[in-house]
């Protein structure tokens, strides 16, 4: 009995230590590039949607709806896992930590009710996808907004 308890408790102590190392590495990764620029939510210029509320953006990115308010299909485009812009979007627009967003999606994913948004590697990639996908909605730095997209939430 004593051996067993020591075994499990020892294992947990090791796990916490490993996790703390990884957390330190994760935090360092995110401190590297801090961007002072605003994050804006954009759709293709060909999409008739011109203005969304924070709740509407939240509903689309958290999978609560698959439609824009006008009834058209909405396809959210996320940015790379653990990227600074994604962390900031989660915190500033969705008002949730990345862990909370992950927890939310694991609930939907593991009940077979949906898949998290597909993610692309950069803001430039978001623009490229939106150029061909009128149903798409993404977020980028304000300085990267060009003629091909319209800002629907800032």
């Amino acid at each position, binding site marked *: 009995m004593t051996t067993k308890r020591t075994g*499990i408790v020892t*294992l947990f102590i090791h796990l916490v230590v490993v996790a703390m190392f*990884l957390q330190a590495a994760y935090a360092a990764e995110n401190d590297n590039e801090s961007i002072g620029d605003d994050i804006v939510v954009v759709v293709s210029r060909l999409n008739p949607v011109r203005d969304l509320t924070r709740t509407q953006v939240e509903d689309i990115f958290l999978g*609560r709806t698959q439609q824009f308010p006008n009834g058209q299909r909405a396809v959210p485009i996320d940015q790379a*896992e653990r990227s600074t812009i994604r962390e900031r979007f989660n915190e500033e627009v969705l008002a949730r*930590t*990345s*862990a909370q967003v992950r927890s939310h999606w*694991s609930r939907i994913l593991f*009940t077979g009710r949906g898949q998290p948004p597909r993610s692309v590697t950069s803001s430039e990639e978001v623009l490229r996808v939106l150029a061909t996908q009128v149903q798409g909605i993404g977020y980028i730095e304000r300085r990267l907004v060009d003629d091909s997209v319209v800002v629907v939430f800032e």
Partner: protein
Amino acid sequence: MNKCQATVLILLSVILNAPIFAQSTNSIWSLNGYGTLGAAHSSENKADYIPSPVFPKGPGSSYNWDAMIDTRAGVQLGVQPNDKLSGVLQVVAEKRFDGKFKPRVEWANLHYALTPSLHVRAGRIALGTYMVSDHRKVGHSLPWLRPPVELYRLIAITSSDGVDLSYQHNFTGGSYTATVSYGSSKAKEFVGLLEASNIWTMVHRVERGPLTLHASYSSAKVDYGRQFHLLWDGFEAFGPAGEVVSARYDATGRWSPFIAVGFQYDPGDWFVMTEWSEGDVGSDFGNRAAWYVSGGYRLGAIAPYVTFARGSGGHRSVNGLDATAFPPSLTPAINTLNESLQVMQEGYGVRQQTVSLGARWDVLPNVAFKGQVDHLHTRKQSLGTFINVAPGYRPREANIISITMDFVF
């Protein structure tokens, strides 16, 4: 640290650093997984604490620290060839009724969108009886270490092999979803095979921003397995008087209806949640009900919570066979039958309340540690959430300490 622990550590280090929700953007296939590693200790050493009726043993008299009541691993394969059709296969390995840690198909179904708001699924489907029923095994998706035990153990059937039809109506800022399902289920429990040939479920769910409302009605025709049949056979061997007792208590083939309502408010920084449920098995074991209220606050990566849960219902005593109507030589046999019935009654009505204090620590976006302390108060003539109780003993108060690590990938 021994070899086994080292293996677990290495495997977990890989998982912890794995890309979350691994999926190649162009593929129609996706592979994801989740898991929990847990350990629990009970201050009550004359009985085993079990959070779910599937376990044959738990922390307490069988184990000082039990590593198995919360530990599990799941993998899910998803396929979505187009916008309308998708399929999901989920296999979960956890400790089963026979004490062995082994995998089982948790669900396997095909989903088809008839219209954007009308969806049909067929195969093995998770039942949405309670607010978090369908994802209660995904520790990472829950604010608590485990769902409130008094309420969540009332429904032992969690998946059904059949079909469901759901209709979603979107209104300004939210949605209403109604789901009707029909199917059957076979669940192996410690007491035997729990077989339900007909399960009907109707679930209403309203989601509006941080608010979720949930209401469900379900009814199932259940066969409780061999151990129960032996008892009824025993009573019936005593002729008409015994048959009366067995007819009073044997719920085989009778409808057992359940209703449940739930409310959740989660704006992000804090949450409150409450659920209430009541049901019976259509026999003299009686009605049983449970409710809980829970709240938590998020301080960055740390989220402490508190839960009060209470189970009630069932009866204190049973209306068994009257030994005085039979020759004295039969009295010991009749007493044994009546005692078995009494133990069933005491195990049926979970008259117990639990105050839980715990915290979740999101160490990484896909990894959370949790710790929880439960203070249980079990009432007289109820076994509460305990089994393997020492003869003549009844648990009254106990503390359970649990730690887990949840991950998703």
